[in-house]
């Protein structure tokens, strides 16, 4: 069952096609990653999902209807570039933003105070936002994203610019929300994060969706011909070897793609023959990064 269905979404800015006929589905209860490098069209896609941008064409369907105010009310949205009213008090900010979502009253105030307590901000509740440190402002922004108890979380590059403490805090929030059966959609250019946290992904490159589906299925599909190895020694003899289609060398970890799946054993044999010490040989793991590179092309290698 899909929570959200995105069909043929297109958005153009002054002759630049930001999002080009993008379609993907977000299943119920999933942690969904929208993955791509900077400028690929992630933020534009999320803004269209939030109805902040009007798509040129295409539609986003939520519970059988085009997204509208109902959807907005049920989403907690954390934009990439965060912002709050600088002169407003912390507690006023939280109550105001929650009221915009249609949740107000005593209950919300108590909940806001609970969150402030948990995030170690209880003593700052009457401070102005501008008097808080950047890290604490981010915490206030997280609280404002989840205070109204949204069904969906849409987070645009949520880990960008976070210190380690806040990164953990946000991960914790995401996992809690996941356990409560909520849908979490986030965009990132950090493949590692996506790989660890998502169960579904859509990969976007130059405005086009180049891959979409369950992460484990995608990995299975791409895994057969891919080998990742940890080693000591010299593997440069593999370059130009007829069984190798592609090789990505990170020093002592390497992702190798062979031309045919049965050539994996041949690869292992030749490594041993060349006195390379194999510490780990994983014939069915492929990193999301490798998948991305194989699809988006060489220039994506330094993402």
């Amino acid at each position: 069952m899909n929570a959200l269905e995105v069909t043929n979404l297109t958005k153009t800015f002054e002759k630049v096609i930001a999002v080009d006929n993008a379609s993907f589905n977000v299943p119920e209860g999933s942690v969904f990653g929208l993955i791509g490098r900077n400028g690929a069209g992630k933020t534009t896609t999320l803004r269209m999902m939030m109805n902040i941008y009007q798509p040129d064409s295409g539609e986003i369907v939520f519970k059988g209807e085009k997204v509208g105010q109902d959807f907005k009310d049920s989403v907690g949205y954390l934009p990439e570039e965060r912002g709050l009213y600088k002169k407003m008090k912390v507690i006023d900010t939280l109550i105001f933003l929650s009221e915009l979502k249609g949740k107000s009253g005593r209950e919300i105030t108590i909940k806001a105070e609970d969150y402030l307590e948990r995030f170690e901000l209880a003593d700052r509740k009457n401070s102005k936002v501008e008097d808080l440190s950047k890290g604490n402002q981010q915490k206030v922004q997280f609280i404002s994203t989840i205070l109204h108890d949204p069904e969906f979380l849409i987070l645009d590059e949520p880990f960008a610019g976070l210190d380690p403490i806040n990164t953990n805090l946000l991960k914790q929030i995401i996992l809690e929300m996941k356990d409560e059966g909520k849908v979490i959609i986030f965009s990132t250019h950090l493949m590692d994060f996506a790989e660890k946290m998502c169960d579904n992904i859509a990969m976007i490159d130059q405005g086009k969706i180049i891959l979409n589906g369950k992460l484990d299925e995608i990995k299975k599909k791409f895994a057969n011909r891919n080998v990742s190895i940890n080693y000591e020694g010299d593997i440069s003899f593999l370059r130009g070897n007829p069984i190798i289609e592609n090789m990505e060398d990170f020093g002592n970890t390497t992702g190798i793609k062979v031309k045919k799946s049965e050539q994996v054993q041949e690869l292992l044999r030749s490594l041993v023959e060349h006195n390379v010490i194999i510490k780990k040989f994983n014939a069915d793991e492929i990193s999301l990064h490798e998948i991305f590179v194989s699809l988006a092309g060489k220039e994506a290698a330094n993402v």
Partner: protein
Amino acid sequence: MFNRRTITIVKRELKAKLFSKTFIIMTLLVPVFIFGLFGIQIFIYSVSEEENPNLLIVSETENISRRLKNEFDEYSEVKSGNYRISYETLDTSAFAERLKGLKADLLSETLTGVVYVPEAALANKNVKYYSPNPSNQALFNKIKPGINKALINIYFEDKKLTREEVDYARNNVDITGYRITKDQKVEEEGVGNLVALFLFSFLLYMALIFSGQTTMHSVVEEKSSRIVEVLLSSVSSTELMAGKIIGVVITEVVQMIIWLLPVILLITTSWFVLPADIIFKLDLNFILYFLFNYTIALFTFVGLFATVGAIFDNPQDAQSGVWPLMILVIFPFLIAISLQSNPQSSVAKITSLLPFTSLLVMPARLTLVQVPTLEVIASVVINLAVLFAIFPLAGKIYRVGIMVTGKKPKWSEVRRWLKIKS
């Protein structure tokens, strides 16, 4: 458009604006500023008069000299010792010599000036003034009546006229304005209505410029602080814009009512008594009209200023982009102020019906003359029509502009935003 989200935005605006220190300061400061402005003018006028002028009046005959002394001795300035005047009697050639000797005194300003009254002045009233500052109008206005009176007295002395006849001849024509109103009353006009013209025009002008500017800057700030994207994830741009404008309008109308409170009390109660010649003939209907017109003007201009704010993402760019709007407020204000010379001129009549200008010119005209009710209604209808016509356009620009950051947009781009379908 008017739903709980808009109301939430309005509430926040009121909290940030109406219940703020800035509101209290502005409410107190603007009247101080306006009265300060009038005060400075009066001050400049008063100090433009010569301080302790020291004059030498030279006449060609003894008789003229004596008569002049008689007249000037009556001056309060002379009695108080503020004006020092000495008298000499010299003929034209002797005077020329005397003047040479006085040159040093004149240049060192120990002597303010020398007045020469030749005998011929009895026929042609031509008098000469010698000074390093020979066009001192403030001084001339003071001494002319005295000289005139002396010359007239000598001229009519042997004409066997009674004092009444001489007084009659001497009197200037005095025009008293009477206001003809529809209800057949004929009322004597004082300067009170001119004071009202300046007061109401200044209030309108300053309040519009100030509220427009602050709204523009708060929109720019929402954009640059990125709070706007958070807001738009909950509300539509129309709701956001409407909430913001309504918040500002309520704040400003409340402020205007506070400013007008003394005027309202003056009209409705007898707590204060003004000197007869500065009482103004305005009634409560005018105040109500003024507030209603002000509300329309606020919606129009605050909406436009907010739109300009949405186009730019930093205060400098916004300030340089707002000049067409500023002209739209300043130009009608200048017309309104110039109405004092003739509030019924064709310029006055036309601009009090045109969109934008009528927002300032019509109330200004109403302080001076009775404008046919139909014209007042027409101006209100025109302004409302313009308001409803520009709001969808402003909303479109706002909707696109509010999410555009980075490069300063060109006007041609802004025009294209208007074509984007919603």
